[in-house]
């Protein structure tokens, strides 16, 4: 992998307007947690959580808090993933228009290194943003409650990372096939938000439809699994190897296409 190109991809990705908007939103959410949430404790047991003086959930303290974090996470997945997809859609599809690419390919870089650096750079950008967001959130909660809510790191870092591991590989493949940022963005958004619709065929008896359904990434399953973990700390859906298999297949196809392309 080319470290220089990896760093350059992170820099480019984070300077996209959509990504800057994510940073602003994340800062606003951290401020909201810092200023808007109040926690009531008795003997280090969370009794209730209130938002600007109002109790948002009629439940026992910790359950209320988990429900709230779950809602934040869903909101995060809906909004942040939307912005991440927009912010990274052009990374592969517009790659050929970058005059530096031709220069880099004449340096000590193979095409495989370029694609892998690009892919790793995109995933790292998203993970970096989510990591900072999660660490700040945990830090703010610690200052307010003197308790370490480390399990929050799971939905805030691992879920987007796994989601993006798959989405970035898919975006790479779509970007190289269509060479158009808008098409890549629309298809990725459809794939993410209508995922249940695309993968519904997996349970059908018809083999052709079943096969087609298996071509789509199981993104909705990832979200379901992590939601289960947030709410009840366990999940019956445990097949992370499948996501990596999908990501490897998409990335492998991207590499094959890029290797054979005339630039």
């Amino acid at each position, binding site marked *: 992998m080319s470290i220089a190109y990896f760093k350059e991809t992170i820099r480019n990705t984070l300077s996209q307007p959509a990504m800057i908007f994510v940073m602003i939103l994340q800062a606003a959410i951290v401020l909201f947690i810092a200023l808007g949430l109040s926690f009531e404790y008795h003997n280090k047991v969370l009794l209730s959580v209130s938002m600007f003086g109002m109790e948002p959930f009629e439940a026992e303290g910790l359950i209320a808090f988990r429900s709230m974090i779950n809602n934040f996470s869903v909101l995060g997945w809906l909004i942040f993933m939307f912005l991440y997809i927009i912010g990274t859609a052009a990374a592969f599809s517009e790659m050929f228009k970058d005059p530096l690419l031709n220069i880099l390919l004449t*340096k000590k870089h193979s095409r495989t290194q370029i694609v892998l650096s690009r892919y790793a750079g995109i995933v790292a950008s998203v993970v970096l943003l989510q990591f900072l967001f999660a660490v700040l959130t945990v830090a703010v909660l610690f200052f307010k409650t003197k308790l370490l809510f480390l399990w929050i790191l799971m939905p805030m870092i691992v879920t987007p990372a796994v989601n993006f591991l798959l989405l970035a590989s898919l975006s790479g493949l779509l970007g190289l096939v269509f060479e158009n940022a808008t098409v890549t963005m629309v298809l990725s958004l459809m794939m993410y938000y209508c995922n249940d619709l695309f993968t519904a065929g997996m349970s059908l008896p018809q083999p052709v439809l079943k096969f087609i359904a298996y071509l789509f990434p199981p993104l909705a399953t990832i979200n379901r699994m992590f939601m289960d973990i947030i709410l009840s700390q366990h999940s019956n859906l445990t097949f992370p190897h499948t996501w990596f298999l999908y990501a490897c297949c998409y990335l492998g196809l991207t590499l094959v296409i890029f290797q054979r392309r005339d630039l």
Partner: protein
Amino acid sequence: MIQIKNLSKTYRLAGFHQRPVQALNDVSMDIRQGEIVAVLGLNGAGKTTLIKILLGLVRPTSGMASVSGKSVTDPASRNCIGYLPEIFRVAPHYTGNAILRFLGSSSGLSGARLQERMNYCLGLVDLKEAASQKVSSYSKGMVVRLGIAQAILHEPKILILDEPTDGLDPLGKVMIRTLLGDLAKDGITIIINSHLLSEVEYVAHRVAILHHGKLIRWGALSEIIPLDSKYVFEFPEPVSLPGPWECRQTGGAYCCEVTTTEGLQGMLEYLRRNDIHSYSMKQVRATLEDVFLQYIKEP
């Protein structure tokens, strides 16, 4: 240094009604070390395809090309190549130093060696003082010079330049011309793809003229440009001339061009026989542009 044998490239375009486009057709060349070679041709002649095949960016349909004995399909063949693309565009956040550091580290340079090479190359293209400024504040000529600096940063043995003097002012052109001459003296092989024939004429040792993907002329400048060239007769008043000759008004005089030695003898004979004495004659050496246009018209 660079061997090209029977190289052909056909682009198969997407779409059922699209015909394949033959960009290169059976091109063979042998480029020696320390030579400056200019690749000339009209738009779509196959110049860029030829360069991209040498850089490994485009795969040939048939034939072979090798750089320093290694096939161009082998990524190791590109280690000794420096490349300046026709459009050297850099993200606006880069400074001159930053882009050189990025591309230098991509070439495997690092630490003090990288800094030393950066200082040297920036000095060569006269950009030392502007190196800490953002590239977005550079003039077109400065960007081209920065492009040349990045191309020679890793001390390549072969330099491939796509329109290197395009956008440069006369002073910049002279600087690049001198620099290319010095690099060639140091044993660096230089391939220039350019439309500026007058510039090429100053620096190139050998010229390749491509037309519709075919190599129609390949040789030293002295072989391609005839020394006897053409003769221009200038008359104070219109003269009736026979056959292929034509008297045209140019400024305040009437001129007639004769392009061959036989023609010259015929013209002098005609003037003597018709008692025309009031004229002047000068020998004009053909330029690369004249020769290029002649080959393009009659390949």
